[in-house]
């Protein structure tokens, strides 16, 4: 992938960003640079090679290092080859990027988009979640009508009727070694790719109030399920035991104490990285370090909005997809990207120690309603309500 030729305003933005960031955070060299510009995805999947996540973690794991800031945004819509402007999810996979949209899966490779639909074998055109197995390289695609394994150019489909899947609307998919986990409105599902067997977790065999699950992630030997009305369900793989985390006040209309647990029982996503579990909801954000919970609202942090569609943590940084922009945070410092209402420009708002600084961005994100995100060491890809955006790490 080639970096687009920068326009003058974009160049100005980068210079301004560099100056401000240098002043704010001092050492910008801490942000990983890797020689010639690449997609950030050109990393071997061979077992003896560092995987992209680990590389990324190392790049940002040191507390003394500043928050990564992305600029030089490039936006893609149907005019550029996407099947739909409504983008639900995005996943970086080596040299290519997989984007789930309402009307098919778009794959960006060698600077071009290619669309896959039911005509190619997908179970449904609405693609809402994607993950890629680091073991096999297979892409697991959650659709509005079933789950699909994309392997060797072929789609193998799993539905409620032809397999033991809990429900056909797959809100979340997560690859964890040989296992694939899904979050659906009919429960969480676990597929053992070796045994080719499904296991379903609902309120009948897990501490869920209801079987409605909408997000799933793996880390620290555990699976974390975002359960609608049930907070977070933690499953420890070694013991096969569950534990649930809910808001202790037990009321939907309030959060009694900020740091007493999840900020709300209606959770929308989980992501574990760097020793911290991040949990999103439509009511705010929180994280858990294994001992203490910490809550965040848009009124007391740099969070763009309390309405969070999705969350993904990479290293110490969580990328938070809200309805009013993209936020990122290490729990203390915040960078929020917002597009202007009336033009393609926008800004990055950097909040450190309660002090806010703004960096103009030209252009900015494609839209402020953010639904999906993925990042590696050099690039961030964002799925929005109106197009897909790619940002480049400012070095």
């Amino acid at each position, binding site marked *: 992938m080639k970096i687009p030729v920068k326009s003058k305003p974009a160049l100005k933005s980068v210079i301004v960003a560099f100056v401000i960031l240098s002043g704010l955070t001092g050492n910008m060299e801490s942000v990983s640079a890797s020689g010639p510009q690449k997609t950030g995805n050109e990393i071997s999947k061979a077992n003896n090679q560092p995987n992209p996540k680990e590389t990324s973690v190392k790049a940002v794991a040191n507390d003394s290092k500043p928050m990564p800031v992305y600029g030089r945004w490039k936006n893609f819509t149907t005019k550029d080859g996407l099947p739909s402007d409504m983008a639900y999810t995005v996943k970086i996979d080596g040299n290519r990027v997989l984007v789930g949209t309402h009307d098919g899966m778009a794959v960006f490779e060698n600077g071009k988009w290619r669309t896959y639909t039911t005509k190619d074998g997908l179970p449904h055109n609405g693609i809402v979640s994607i993950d890629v197995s680091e073991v096999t390289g297979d892409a697991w695609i959650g659709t509005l*009508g079933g789950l699909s394994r994309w392997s060797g150019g072929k789609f193998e489909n799993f539905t409620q009727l032809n397999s033991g899947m*809990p429900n056909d609307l797959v809100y979340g998919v997560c690859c964890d070694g040989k296992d694939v986990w899904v979050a659906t409105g009919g429960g969480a599902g676990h597929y053992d790719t070796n045994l080719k067997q499904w296991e379903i977790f609902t309120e009948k065999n897990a501490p869920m109030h209801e079987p409605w699950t909408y997000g799933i992630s793996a880390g620290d030997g555990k699976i974390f399920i975002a359960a609608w009305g049930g907070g977070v369900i933690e499953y420890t793989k070694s013991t096969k035991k569950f534990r649930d985390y809910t808001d202790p006040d037990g009321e939907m209309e309030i*959060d009694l104490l900020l740091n007493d647990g999840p900020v709300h029982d209606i959770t929308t996503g989980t992501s574990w990285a760097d020793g911290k579990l991040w949990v999103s909801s439509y009511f705010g954000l929180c994280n858990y370090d294994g001992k203490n919970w910490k809550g965040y609202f848009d009124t007391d942090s740099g969070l763009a909005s309390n*309405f969070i569609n999705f969350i993904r943590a990479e290293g110490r940084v969580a990328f938070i997809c809200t*309805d009013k922009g993209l936020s990122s945070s290490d729990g203390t410092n915040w960078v929020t990207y917002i597009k202007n209402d009336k033009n393609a420009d926008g800004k990055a708002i950097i909040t450190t120690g309660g002090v806010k600084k703004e960096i103009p961005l030209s252009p900015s994100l494609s839209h402020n309603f953010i639904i999906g995100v993925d990042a590696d060491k050099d690039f961030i890809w964002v799925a929005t309500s*109106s197009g897909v955006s790619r940002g480049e790490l400012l070095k």
Partner: protein
Amino acid sequence: MTTIMKRIIWISVFCYFILMGQVSNLNAQEKKTNYGKASDEILPYDKFAKAYKYHFLTPIEFYGAGREKTALKDLKEVRIGFLGPLTTSVMVPQGIQMLQGATLAMEEANKKGGYKGLPFKIMPHNDAGLWGAAANEVVKMDDEKVWAFLGSIDDIVSHVALRAALKLEIYMVCTGDPDPTFTETNIPWQCRVISDDRQSGYALVNYIHKKKGHKRVAMIRVNGRYGRVGVKEYADAAVRLGFPFVIEERFNDGETDFKAQIERVRKTNPDAILLWGNAKESALILQQIRAAGLKQPVFGSDRMVSPEFLKIAGPLAEGIVTTCQYNPNSTDPKYLAFKSNYSKRFKQEPDVFAAHAYDGMNIIIDAIKKVGLNRVLIRDVIAGLKEFQNYPGVTGKIVFDHSWNDVSDIYMAEVRNGKFEFTVAPPMETGQRTGNGKKEPNSYTN
């Protein structure tokens, strides 16, 4: 002073007082209300600490794209989805009534020309198929290109459908699910046009503990989400007044022998018994309570308000008090016309689900007529709390709170002479009454 002058002065004075009355009404301060119309004394934690964050203070906006989209030009019909229990569910009779209420509204709209000459068409979907079927059905509605949809009754269905509605951006009008948590999701793609179990619970708490002065109440509820979530607001409010249940017994839908539960209730010697379940089981429990010799007053949830309950319970139903989301005996001409047209069309009396589905479908139709065929704009106009606030439905005025929950009047229903009679539930009184009707301070403040 001439007679004319005297008349002018009298008329002036008369006009002055009339005007003052009007002005004072205009300038009257809106009464502060708590979330869910809760009285101060039952607000959670309020006596001890203020919450760090209060939700639902303002309606959440939808900031996504899509308002610029235009409908296809070759449309043949305007499709509106319907999600309800139509087969393989104990709630099928209610689902059929719901579909009929929605159908009547649609047929009436089509007689008036539909939408710019295009007929409205219901796309019915059964919500009781495979586990989590509601999600799959909403996906099908998206494939069918419905502009909005109406549903459902079962709260498990409604929640699953709502999350899919958000993903697919289809506005959902809930007309039959009383689960308070349905609207407490912060999803800006829904509204509910029927009172919820929070309102029912508060009305019953007020009636049982404040008006009747009962302190020791035994609960017998259905095992399942309707029972568990339905009684929660009652139970929480009662605890805050100092009256936790003395016992909570459960049963399953379809059970017919409740002797074991009733025997355990007897041992607690309660002042009153509260039933929370469907009509049939509630009537059978009432029969067996009386057969066991228990004479305590019995109260119940709104699903008792049905011909089935009266038929099974017979004379034992006399004096039973419950709640109802509207007044089925209303003499409002609009309601009477609906009742008459419905009875002629479907050869049966409308029930609560039919009446609210009729209102819900009319709201969707009116929204489309106002803003056209665009899902986001349909959402905007209903959720905007302007055009559809105080909507005059056949079930009464629909009043939305900031979570788009219907917090309009709820009714107390009492069986008298073999029929339910309905009165508007009064707001919760402050202070408590003893069994003798004497007021005393709230015990939990002591």
